[in-house]
């Protein structure tokens, strides 16, 4: 199995969720993160003191999928999350050695 991890713009979550649903992928875990990259941050000035805000709000989406599905998931995310502007984010793929469903104890693909 694979773990597909996508860093996306917060406003694209709903589109990504729907795109995955149409692939029959109905599970994922989302984390609020801050991203740093090419996309410029901004600066805030409080009573004359300037603070550079380098990190911008992003969402990290993690989806465990069977190997076979991973390419389609990547494409689906890419299409749903793309705005074409800098800062759209990345998709990472990791090898996932083992999965267990806590409730039932099932493992492997059955646990997804």
């Amino acid at each position: 199995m694979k773990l597909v991890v996508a860093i996306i713009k917060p406003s694209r979550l709903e589109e990504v969720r729907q795109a995955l649903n149409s692939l029959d992928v109905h599970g994922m875990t989302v984390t609020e993160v801050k991203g740093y990259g090419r996309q410029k941050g901004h600066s805030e000035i409080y009573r004359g003191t300037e603070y550079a805000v380098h990190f911008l709000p992003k969402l990290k989406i993690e989806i465990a999928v069977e190997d076979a599905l991973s390419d389609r998931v990547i494409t689906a995310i890419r299409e749903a999350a793309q705005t074409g502007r800098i800062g759209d984010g990345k998709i990472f793929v990791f090898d996932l050695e083992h999965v267990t469903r806590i409730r039932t104890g099932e493992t492997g693909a059955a646990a997804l």
Partner: protein
Amino acid sequence: MIIARTTKVVGASLASLTTLLYALPALAQSATSAATAAAPAAAAPAAPAINSGDTAWMLTSVALVLMMTIPGLGLFYAGMVRKKNVLATVMQSFAITCVVTLLWFIIGYSIAFTNDDPANPGKFIGSFAHFLLNGINVNSINGLAPTIPEYVFSMFQMTFAIITPALICGAFAERMKFSAMIIFMSLWLLFVYAPIAHWVWGGGFLGGLGVLDFAGGTVVHINAGVAGLVCALVLGRRKGFGTVNMAPHNLVLSFIGASLLWVGWFGFNAGSAVASNALAGAAMMNTQVATAAAALAWMFAEWLVVKKPSVLGIISGAVAGLVAVTPASGFVNPTGAFIIGIVAGVVCYYAAAHLKKMFGYDDSLDAFGVHGIGGIIGALLTGVFADAAINPLGANHSIITQLEGVVVTIVWTAVVTWVILMVTKMLVGLRASEAEEEEGLDITQHGESVAE
């Protein structure tokens, strides 16, 4: 000439430190012997009678002014610190409220606002006779407020005594030890606030000189602002100052705080008429106009300079306006208040945003930049814009006399604040340890934290 005269006055007031230190232990002792030939401060009213309308407004004013400190000032400051210090910041306002209440009840009111011989009030300090409010009862009236019960007058003045030290906290935010703060503030109330309140309002020498201070430009704001500056200098900068992000963590809290300060300030300024009359109305109108003018002046200045109008800017400007109009509110007309507001907004913006950087001290929440500078602007401009049609007591206004009041206050508070800081440092130390400062005062001083 003004310098010579001022120097003399300053010398005299420093001399009173000794008097005060000496007199304190002997609580029942009369201190007025030190004040020979003082001008009678407030004419004793012929037949004082309680007026229920005046009393109603003053009872209300007490509530309003207390609300300025808790929750007002507490929130105003708390929104500007980092999240790890938010509880410690509100704690300061709350604890000061409690400590000052007891000190005022025990001896503060007596020192500041009573005199052994009201016809011949103490030049430098008042009486020690009303220890624990001894001798004050439901029939008492203080000649300074002849139409309301003395309990109400004393309560009203207490709320001023509460907010003044609380204002100082802005200067040493995020780094002072809680125990040190308690000790410092207690001494400061007795040795700085109470005497100065007496000098200006309680029959002392500054009121006698003709210094105009309707609601506390010198007594409250210059006093607190300068004390704050001394604290900032003595304590030093916060760890990481200039490199670490110290942006205000939640300006919604500061918005609530500034709003309640504004609303409560009606009690402060209009309440300082100590009556429910047209002078109170004029003070209210002046307060409103100056505050709005200063808020917009700061906002537009910032908009021009850094291209964005900010919440912190407009609320800071409002507070600067409130501060500056405080001494003037019962002396000037609304057009005067308008001008005072604009000047205060622009100058305090400059002070907080640029002056501080130039000198490099860490007056963290601009206690000096807003209250010190704003107070000085207001005190001086009261000497310019006082209008006898609003208040006949302002007929002989003079910017020179005002300047004397300002200088005396600055010198006294600077020197004595420094002394008290040294004493406190010896007793318990002033700053939290570096590790504590980094972990945050909420956890390290109070063992608490805000979840979310």
